């Protein structure tokens, strides 16, 4: 069974976090809360998402897997006001879910989870450098980079974390020294990432005051942050591009 009530804005944020990579998810429920692991069709970016039962106003569930179409849910949430509550209940026999928002009530048909790409195995990676910074700083750097290039270098040198993008003719670089960061565990590393992905990922991250980046040398990057006052945890993992030349 699955029955829950949650703030509309929180559900909307959650859907956004996942839909930057995939359109359909396998949602795992348990008495502790809900979780999703997904990888984009190209196998380039992954996301792990956990939302504790305490994030909900009302939560009751046992172990199960539900197949959801994210676009449908975000369409439905279009009618919701920021402060509305959304309540959901799974109708196990008819394979659909009732969703109530204010005086609207929807019946959402579910997907057969076996038709959705299975959960990825999250690779165990040793990433030597760790940076903690404000999400808006990260978003700003990515936005600047998008103007001139389609990829961006993230790295640490001495005690400075830098983000750099080079287009055909122009270049932009943002240096953040230790005192401009919340925390830094330095190591001499750098990796290049596709801005197509990065810009989508940092959008939800920008709402967080503390974003944790873990970087290696030509290795995937981990981007972790919390939502809903720490009751939700989000981790993105993005594979690098190879630097040419």
């Amino acid at each position: 069974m699955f029955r829950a009530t949650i703030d509309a804005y929180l559900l909307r944020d959650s859907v956004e976090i996942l839909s930057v990579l995939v359109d359909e998810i396998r949602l795992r429920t348990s008495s502790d809360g809900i979780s999703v692991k997904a990888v984009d069709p190209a196998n380039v970016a992954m996301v792990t998402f956990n939302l504790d039962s305490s994030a909900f106003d009302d939560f009751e569930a046992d172990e199960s897997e539900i197949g959801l179409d994210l676009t449908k849910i975000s369409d439905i949430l279009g009618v919701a006001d920021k402060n509305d509550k959304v309540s959901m209940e799974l109708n196990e026999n008819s394979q659909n879910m009732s969703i109530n928002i204010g005086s609207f009530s929807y019946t959402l048909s579910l997907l057969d989870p076996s038709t959705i790409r299975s959960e990825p195995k999250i690779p165990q990676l040793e990433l030597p450098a760790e940076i903690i910074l404000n999400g808006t700083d990260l978003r700003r750097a990515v936005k600047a980079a998008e103007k001139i290039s389609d990829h961006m270098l993230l790295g640490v040198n001495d005690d400075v974390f830098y983000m750099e993008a080079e287009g055909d003719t122009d270049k932009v670089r943002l240096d953040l020294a230790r005192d401009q960061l919340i925390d830094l565990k330095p190591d001499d590393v750098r990796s290049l990432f596709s801005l197509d992905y990065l810009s989508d990922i940092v959008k939800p991250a920008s709402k967080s005051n503390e974003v944790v980046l873990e970087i290696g040398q030509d290795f995937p990057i981990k981007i972790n942050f919390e939502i809903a006052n720490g009751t939700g945890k989000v981790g993105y993992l993005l594979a690098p591009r190879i630097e040419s030349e």
Partner: protein
Amino acid sequence: METKKLELPEYIIQFYLDTGIEELYPPQEEAVEKGLLDNKNLLAAIPTASGKTLISELAMLNSISTGGKCLYIVPLRALASEKFERFKEFSSIGVKVGISTGDFDSTDEWLGSNDIIVATSEKADSLLRNETSWMKDITTIVVDEIHLLDSVDRGPTLEITIAKLLRLNPNSKIIGLSATIGNAGEIAGWLDAELVQSQWRPIELYEGVFLDDNINFKQSQKPIKNIVKDTAVNLVIDTIDENGQCLVFESSRRNCAGFAKKAKSKVGKSLDKGLLDELNNIAEEVLETSDTETTKELASCIKRGTAFHHAGLNSAQRKIVEDNFRNNKIKVISSTPTLAAGLNLPARRVIVRNYKRYDPNFGMQPIPVLDYKQMSGRAGRPSLDPYGESVLISHTYNEFTDLLDRYIDAEPEDILSKLGTENALRTHVLSTIVNGFATTRQGMVDFMGSSFFAYQQQKWSLIDVVDDCIEFLQDNEMIKDDGEHLYATRLGQVISTLYIDPLSGAIIIDKLKKADKVNDMTMLHIICSTPDMRQLYLRSKEYEKINEYVMTHSDEFVEVPNPFKSIEYEWFLGEVKTALLINEWIDEKTLDDITAEFGVGEGDINALSDISEWLMHSAVNLAKLTDLDADKAQELEKRIHHGVNKDLIQLVSISNIGRVRARKLYEAGIQSVSDIKNTDLYTLSNYLGKKTAYKVLEQLGVEPEDNQQIDEEPESIKSYSGNYQGQKTFNDF
């Protein structure tokens, strides 16, 4: 007017009824009323998609039903194939259709048994020069896109071809099909044709200008959601949200590709998974056509539903883009304006993102109204879209009102003949003498008097130019004057049938005579210094590199101009750059390397190698004729054709073996046809793959023995990284 009321044989009417055409469009009806099916000439100046082709079809089929033969002239090869495919549908009513492509010095006599022959204007001209016999039997001539009389490159040939055809077949009927232009009456007058002029379109066209989050049409406004910074991207998204497709016109190739890339992430998000899967397959198909950087870019755009289209793509890629736009898989094409002039590829919304174009003399200039109308006319697919929209983009109120005046409310310009220069006329003066359309100076002046130039402008202004041409041809011994008549020498005849500019012929002969020793570069530069070659533009940063090459190889050029004469010298360096590109092509450099080094597209390399092969072929003929050494040119002609070094010529002459495969075989010690014959299928398969190896042996008359088990070629594992260059995936960790 109902189709069944047409005064045509029953089987023709039935053909149209069967294809669902029961009623004529108003301009078609007007054409019939003005004598389309009688013995009248006709000029139809009507918008795109208002049924021009059908007008020409009715006239042709009518003529064929009484034993006539029709010539359909188009400006582009791609258009020739498009029309050919369409007319082939008449085979069900017994009408035979042929298409004339191929080399300029062939006569294509075999085409004569067809009822309709489709040809480009250049090919039609060359068929006349080669005195193809069936040209005399033409009863109906259709000239598609006749407003191209205005084009500097093609206009002169088009009007001379029309003039010759009408001289050859004085009783034939001519149908001109034109875009809406300012002076259609003038062309009609020249052709002695009835004029059908109309603004009617089968589907409503709304022309608007974008300003401040709205498309402003004449009667209404349409708000556009401001999602990203780029207005054109927002317009694209808006169209796709309404289930339409978009054509975006850009000023340069670079901008075309740039826009397709820019729009792809947003467009991709609006598409459903099923379509994205199909697009992935299409992208794979594109990747198989070539492995240049441009190809990868194109594939990555197509995966997200966008594409770009310009002359830098190879023909396979262009076809994939066109076909998949027609079947509504690709949602957006950003294209250079050439697409507007050519193919029938309509879309719901046309966005003219950039209405300025670079002119080497004046910098960025607004495009002519005629060009704008050609682009906006592509909006709206008949019977598929409810309406068509074209949008110009303005950024300020001043620009907005300027665009309204300049384009939306403007009439298209008049078109002007471009025949009146020596460069345009020289080749036609020669061919006119060679083919006997004129045998005296006065006869020449009379013949030129039947051109559109003479009709439109002053006949006397042509006379000086004609005299200059005659003088040039006499000086170069291409024609002679025996006091009474002008007649062509053997040299003149050869140059005319080779279809090259007489000046090119003169340059080739002159330089071959002056050259002491001829190596590859000497010969390549000779053909690159002719006006028929399409010169590459010398960029300032390349000056040093090319200059350096000239310094160290100066003895390989017939003459090097004085570097202090800077204009002449830079022109020369441009010729050398072009020659160097051909040199790399025949040195087996990969297309990818050549495109990167010279800043050109793959389509350009194909075009350049086609032209230079043709010029080299001409050089061979000219050298033989003037008793000069033709060996080098002969060797280079073959090498350019295949793009290989000398040692591979034998191998590449086998079909199915191209430059890459040939090199592999050669390196493996299989260096001649007899070597291949002595190689067993198994070994050969290692280099060619099993299927090709089998075909090659079969072709050489060897019974391939297939007694050994050969595993199928392993499917090449294409990772997703074809999409994003250098993108790793989690499979790598």
